[in-house]
């Protein structure tokens, strides 16, 4: 992304500095309108291919004494299986949800890391549609298993904790329905989107701003431009941390919601 902006900034000399806006994130490559093949779509397909190739290549010749690449794959899988699945969902039911959790984790992690890997540099999750699609999968899953386990009527009854005084039950019921059906999916999608979007916008601001100051500024602004680039470097490191953290948080919350649907009472 920064490449396009750099080019447009370099050509539009003397026009004053344009701060990057949310419009920079819409980049159709072919066609236009609702069916446009955009840059995030291409990055997403690339990531799916990359993950499939990596997982197949590292596990096809699985050995008792793992090679380095197999060790990485096993480490990531073990982390999700034991650290998230078994610890949160519980040792009884967790195995059938591990594929979902690991798929979400690897997809989100690779797509997030694409935000800082040089030739790609586009965090797919900064387009709101993609986190919404992932959240939809989680949303349907945890409601479906909850309703299948106890039935639809009982599922809604279980939203209210037992032992409350009667007059407070309707209020708590409304609150819990809002939490389960609106707040949870909304925050799940927006958290991932917001972190990737804001982080990338921040990097964009420091890099394009630094470039503008170095090219067009006086001697003082040139020094500030170098400082801006240094800041962009520090923020890139920070961004990598956030990218790991967001992938982990998304999977952690998914596991928490699934565990809530599987638990005996609210």
């Amino acid at each position, binding site marked *: 992304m920064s490449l396009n902006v750099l080019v447009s900034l370099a050509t539009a000399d003397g026009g004053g500095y344009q701060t990057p806006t*949310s419009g920079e994130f819409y980049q159709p490559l072919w066609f236009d309108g609702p069916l446009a093949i955009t840059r995030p779509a291409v990055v997403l397909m690339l990531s799916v291919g990359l993950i499939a190739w990596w997982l197949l290549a590292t596990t096809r010749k699985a050995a008792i004494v793992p090679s380095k690449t197999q060790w990485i794959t096993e480490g990531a899988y073990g982390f999700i299986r034991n*650290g*998230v699945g078994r*610890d*949160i969902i519980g040792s009884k039911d967790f195995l059938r949800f591990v594929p979902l959790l690991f798929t979400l984790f690897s997809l989100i992690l690779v797509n997030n890391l694409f935000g800082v890997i040089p030739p790609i540099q586009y965090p797919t999750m900064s387009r709101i549609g993609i986190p919404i699609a992932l959240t939809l999968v989680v949303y349907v899953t945890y409601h479906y298993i909850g309703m299948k386990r106890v039935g639809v009527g009982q599922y809604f009854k279980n939203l209210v904790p037992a032992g409350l005084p009667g007059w407070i039950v309707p209020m708590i019921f409304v609150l819990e329905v809002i939490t389960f059906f609106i707040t949870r999916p909304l*925050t799940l999608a*927006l*958290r991932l*989107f*917001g*972190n990737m*979007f*804001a982080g990338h916008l921040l990097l964009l601001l420091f890099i394009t701003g630094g470039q503008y100051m170095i090219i067009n500024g006086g001697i003082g602004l040139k020094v500030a431009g170098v400082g801006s680039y240094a800041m962009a470097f520090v923020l890139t490191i920070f961004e990598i941390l956030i990218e790991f*953290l967001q992938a*982990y*948080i998304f999977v*952690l*919350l998914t596991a*928490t919601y699934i565990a809530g649907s599987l638990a005996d009472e609210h």
Partner: protein
Amino acid sequence: MTGNIAILGYGLSAIGPGVGIGLIFAAYINGVARQPEARGMLQSIAILGFALAEALAIFGLVLAFVFK
């Protein structure tokens, strides 16, 4: 001075989560310092709390861009 007042809303919405996240990690550090072997268990709880507290700031950020 010109600008978008929705950005001020984001600044305000970041105060609460900022304080909240600080409190969560303060409690986490305290807990690990007192009982280092509980680190693994406390870590996922702390990150869960962090994620929930952060949601409000993210709402503020998104709404700052929505209401231009």
